Every structure is written in C-alpha cells, then in structure tokens.
C-alpha cells in the first residue's frame, strides 16, 4: 500500500514537473507602447507575428496605451505591482523610474547582442543613466528643426533663417494682414505656447542658458526669454492663440497657409509634404548669439525589474531595435531609425533627413533629473502662458524655472 502511494506521488511529481517545464517554456511578455494613429497598430501586430514565429514559446502581449495617460498608467502600474515586462520610455522619465527602482540593467545583455554595432553613433551614450548603467535600449529618435514655406520665403526674397536675427526679420516680413493677403491673416511663426512647446522655445532661450544653478535666470537667459515673449507681445508675428496652441493647432494653421514657420520633427514631414509638396522645406534651428540648442527627442525600450520573463523581454527589445524590424517600427511612428543599416531605407524626402542630421551636433535632451518630466508637463507651459499674457515678466518666468530645477 505504502509502495503504491509512493509510486502515485512520484508519478504526480513527474507530471507536475513536466507541466511546470512547459509553463516555463511558454513565456508571455507584456509590452506597452503608444502609437498616435490606431491604423498603425497593424504594423505592431505584424512585428509581433514575425517575432513569435521566430521565437517559439514566447508570446508578446502588445498593448497600445493612449499617449495622454501613458506615464500615469505606467507609474501607477509600477507602484501597484502590475508593471509590464517591457515598455516604451523616454529619457525624461529615466531618473524617476530609477528612483522607483523599477528598471533592470541591460548592460551585460547589450554587450553580447550582435545588433549593438549597428546602433547609431552616441545613441547608447545619450541614453546611459546617471549611475553609469545602461537601462534603455534606443528604439527611435527625432530632432526638432524648423519647417518653413519655401515658396513664401522665395517670394519675399528671404533665405531660411540661420540666426535669431534672420528668424525675426523673416517672421516680420511674412506676417501679413488679411487685407493684404486675400482675406487670410498670415503670421511669420506658429508659436506653440501650450503643452510640449518647450522644444519650440528652447532653440531661442536654452541656446543662451545653462542647466546649472542660476543658469536659467542669468541676464543672458532672461534677455533671450524676453526676446521670445516679445515675438507674441511686441512684434506680434505669431497668432493670437499662441499661448494655448499645442501640436494640433500649430500643424493645422501651418497646413492652412496661415503661418510660415513652425518647429517640429520629421514625424510631420509626410503630412506637410501631402499638403504643400515641394513648397515646404526644413533647416536646423537658428543659432542665437553664438549658442545653439535643439531638442533631442528619444524613445527607448526598457525592461522592468518586476518582470518574470526577463530573457524573453530582452529578446523582444532587441528584435525591435534590429535593422529591418526597426525600420518597420518607425514607419508606424514617423520617426528616425536608430540603426545605421536602416537609415538608408528611410522613405522621408532627403531635405528632412538632412535637416535632422545637421541638427544632431547641437541636439540635446533635457537634463537627466527627476524635475525634467514635471518641467515639460506643467512648469514650463504654465509659466510660459503667464509670461505671454503679461501676468508675470520674462524674468519671473526664468526665476520660476530655475527654482524648479535648483531650489
């Protein structure tokens, strides 16, 4: 009887081990991403299918999270112990994710990954954390540059601006009242005073400031901010809606022919070429008093410490950053591939790729400190809008920004 029970127990244990073994082999990677356009989700589905066919036993559960709530959901999921295994992340959030002890270092995995050599120059250095470890694997990038209406510039006998002074001169000349423009009021510059507009403001002000205590409220920085605020208040070369204008507003007014210059990245190239063809072109952000700055917009993937499928998660991250897969991925987002071999396969018109490449030498992300995220979301828009409407002076705005970073 005892022998029979022992045999049954052993058989049960063997079966359990076998089942357990299968369960281990079939891993699911929960992946969070954000695509602006829902039609592009099919591109992600294709990538998942390709990956799963090459990696039997790994299932990718890819979830498109709306951008507006992306980081709220990510942060609350981490605190609630329900973080995804892998997610798309930006550099601005890296210090906060590190503070939460949420990220898994990927340095040793990266060292053994054959795709490493194909990653674009400096991208790994830029995404390295302040503690010297590598947590992020670059996925795509963009650099903000200046779109301009080549036909309007040519008619006004202007060259695309290379300096602040030339920018102001062009903005003034291309601001035309409705009475002199077939009933359509035209402005030289589509200023983005609302959320996300710091990368329009940065080329004029951060080019003359420094991210160090007092660096944002130096006399030079304050004067630069006053110059920028005056584009709205004194020069009146921007639409009166500028304090509230976000991405949709600046793009729609540019597309409707009511502004002559806007800042954005290669992600808007297709829609603007569809609207204007060769009449729209791009140049790097102008230099101001010898300084030059533009925003380096990054996007990486990160592996989370809480993941129970780290090896499978890494395989998926690596897959997305490999040449052809990465080119396919950026088709959905309209951004630049991170691989050298994929760069030649990009389908953007050359003038926009050139504007991106020529901007890279002076493109920088915001400082890798926890305050950067709140600066982008709240502190910059509120203070910029108040300065544009005259509720605070440009100096008080810079004082507020400086104390946000260095109080």
């Amino acid at each position, binding site marked *: 009887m005892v022998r029979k029970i022992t045999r049954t127990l052993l058989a049960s244990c063997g079966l359990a081990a076998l089942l357990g073994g299968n369960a281990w082999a079939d891993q699911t990677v929960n992946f969070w991403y954000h695509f602006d356009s829902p039609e592009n989700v099919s591109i992600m589905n294709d990538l998942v299918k390709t990956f799963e066919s090459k990696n039997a036993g790994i299932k990718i559960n890819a979830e498109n999270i709306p951008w507006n709530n992306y980081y709220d959901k990510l942060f609350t999921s981490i605190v609630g112990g329900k973080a995804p295994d892998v997610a798309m992340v930006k550099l601005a959030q890296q210090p906060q994710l590190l503070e939460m002890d949420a990220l898994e270092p990927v340095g040793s995995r990266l060292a053994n990954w054959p795709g490493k050599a194909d990653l674009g120059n400096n991208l790994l250095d830029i995404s390295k954390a302040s503690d010297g470890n590598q947590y992020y694997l670059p996925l795509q990038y963009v650099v903000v540059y200046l779109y301009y209406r080549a036909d309007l510039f040519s008619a006004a006998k202007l060259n695309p601006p290379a300096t602040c002074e030339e920018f102001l001169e062009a903005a003034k000349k291309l601001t035309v009242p409705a009475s002199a423009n077939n009933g359509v009021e035209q402005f030289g510059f589509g200023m983005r005073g609302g959320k996300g507009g710091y990368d329009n403001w940065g080329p004029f002000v951060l080019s003359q400031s420094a991210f160090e205590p007092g660096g944002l409220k130096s006399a030079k920085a304050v004067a630069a901010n006053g110059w920028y605020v005056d584009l709205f208040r004194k020069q009146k070369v921007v639409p*009166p809606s500028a304090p*509230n204008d976000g991405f949709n507003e600046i793009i729609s007014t540019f597309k409707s022919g009511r502004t002559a210059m806007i800042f954005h990245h290669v992600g808007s190239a297709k829609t603007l070429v569809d609207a204007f063809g060769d009449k729209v072109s791009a140049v790097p952000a102008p230099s101001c008093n010898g300084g030059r700055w533009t925003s380096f917009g990054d996007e990486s993937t990160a592996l989370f410490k809480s993941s129970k499928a780290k090896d499978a998660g890494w395989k998926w991250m690596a897959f997305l950053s490999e040449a052809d897969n990465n080119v396919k991925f950026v088709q959905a987002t309209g951004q630049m591939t991170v691989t050298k071999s994929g760069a030649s396969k990009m389908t953007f018109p050359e003038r926009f790729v050139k504007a991106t490449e020529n901007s890279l030498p002076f493109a920088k992300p915001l400082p890798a400190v926890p305050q950067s995220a709140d600066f982008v979301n709240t502190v910059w828009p509120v203070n910029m809008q108040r300065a544009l*409407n005259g509720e605070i002076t440009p100096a008080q705005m810079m004082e507020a920004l400086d104390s946000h970073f260095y109080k």
Partner: protein
Amino acid sequence: MSAQSDVRRTPYILLSPAIIATLVVVFYPMLQAGITSLYRSILWKPKDVAFIGLDNYFAILHDPVFWDSLGRTAIWIGLTVPLQLALGFVTALLLNRNFWWRPLARSLILIPWALPSVVIGLMWSWIYHPQVGVLNDLLMRCGMLQSAMPWLANPDTALYAIIAALVWQGFPFFAIMILAGLQTIPGNLYEAASIDGATTWQKFLGITLPGLKGVLVTAVMLRIIWVANSMDVIYVMTGGGPGYATHTLPLYAFKRTYSSMDFGYGSALAVTFSLVLLVLITIYLRRVGKDMK
C-alpha cells in the same frame, strides 16, 4: 424562524448588493483618498513616503493657486448652473406648447447632452479658434470684431468661453426635467386661474413655478454637483491654461495628482474640495429645499 422576521430581513437582503457595491466602489476610495492626503506621497518617490499629518492641508491654506482656483470654481458653478437653468426653462416652456414638429424638436434638443464631453471640448475649441474658427469669422463678417479674438488664449475670456460651451452642453438636462415636471401640472388649474382672470405671468408665478419646485430643487442640486466636479471639457479645451486662468479646484487636484504625480497633495485638494461642496449642498438644501419632504 417566523414569517414575520423573514419579512423584516428581506429589505436588508435586497439592499445589501447595492450597499456593498457602494462601500467598495465609493466609500473605500474616499477613505483611501483621506488617508493618502495625510501622507507625503509622490508617486515616483516610493522611498520618501511618510505620514505628515495635516501638513498637506496647511500647505493648501498657503497655496495661492488653491485660492485662485476656488474663486474660479465659484464663478464656474455660479454662472453655469443658473444659465443652464434659464435656458433649459425657456426651452421646456417652448417644447410644452403644441406645434407640428414638437417630437422632432424634443429629440434634437437632446443632442448636446448626448455628445461625449471630449467631443464637445474639441468642437468648441475649433469654433473659438482665432484663425480657423467659425465664431470669429461670423463676428468679423458682421463687423462686430475688427480682428480675430483669441477667446481661449486670453486669460480674461477663457473661463467664460468654456462656461458658454458647458451651458450649451447642459441645458437639455434642465429642459427635459422641467418638461417632465410641466406635464404633471393638472391643466384644470390653469383653466380655473383663467376663469378667475389671472394673467399669463400670474399663472406662471402661482401655478407653474410652485408645481415645478420639487423638480427644480433636485435638478439644480444634481447639476451643482456635476458642474462642480466637471473638468473634462476644461481639460480638453485649455488644459487649465493659459497659465492658471481656467484652473478650477477639481482640475487643479487632477493636475497635481497626475501631471506632478503628487498623490498626497492632490488627495488633500480633492478632500478639501469635497468638504467645500458638501457644505454648499447642505446650505442649498436647508435654504431652498426646506419645505420639501
């Protein structure tokens, strides 16, 4: 077990699912918000979470944005609800008359109420847009404006522009409630008043308004609560800007909680606002609804 005790127990058994659901879905989060408000709790600083008693509440007292937002919330409720009520009342009186397309009019009137707030916010943002918006275009064509007005970008007009959008969204609620109330007033009261020589205005004051009191008190109370808590239209139209010009208290609490990830302070703002609203509703019911059973 007697049949009498079964009868006594039945209401409790029948009510228990609703009570349990309310406890779990409403009271537990409220309690949690109250507890969180006593902590320094910034979401991305889990190691820094600490009990700080009422410090968040003391900080609120010294926060100028809180007081500005409170003032704006008073304007927000004080203008939106009466305007919705007035417009809804007039609409209900019109819809209570006989005309051949009344059924169609009753359906059309519901459209603003049936639209999602996000759609309304986006629609009105484009209506107000200085470059491509229809409002400026119309006003300029009529000669009422010389140049386009940035309704939402100007801190002096932004809040009122959003209030106008919310009045448009909310008046059908009053119209339908009041219309339902109007149809419960017996027609012979009006006939008797006519025989006695009452004017239309006297009939309105003596019959219609008292007959609608119950409906009006309830509808106004519900709208005060909904409008006070409503921030989706503001969020879509201006995000609280320009600057703080359209920050109401619920929006400020939301932004402190989710944009700045400051859950402790955001919860304290939410709790404070709930208490303010509770006091307001209590005063309202005591003064306006005192004769009601």
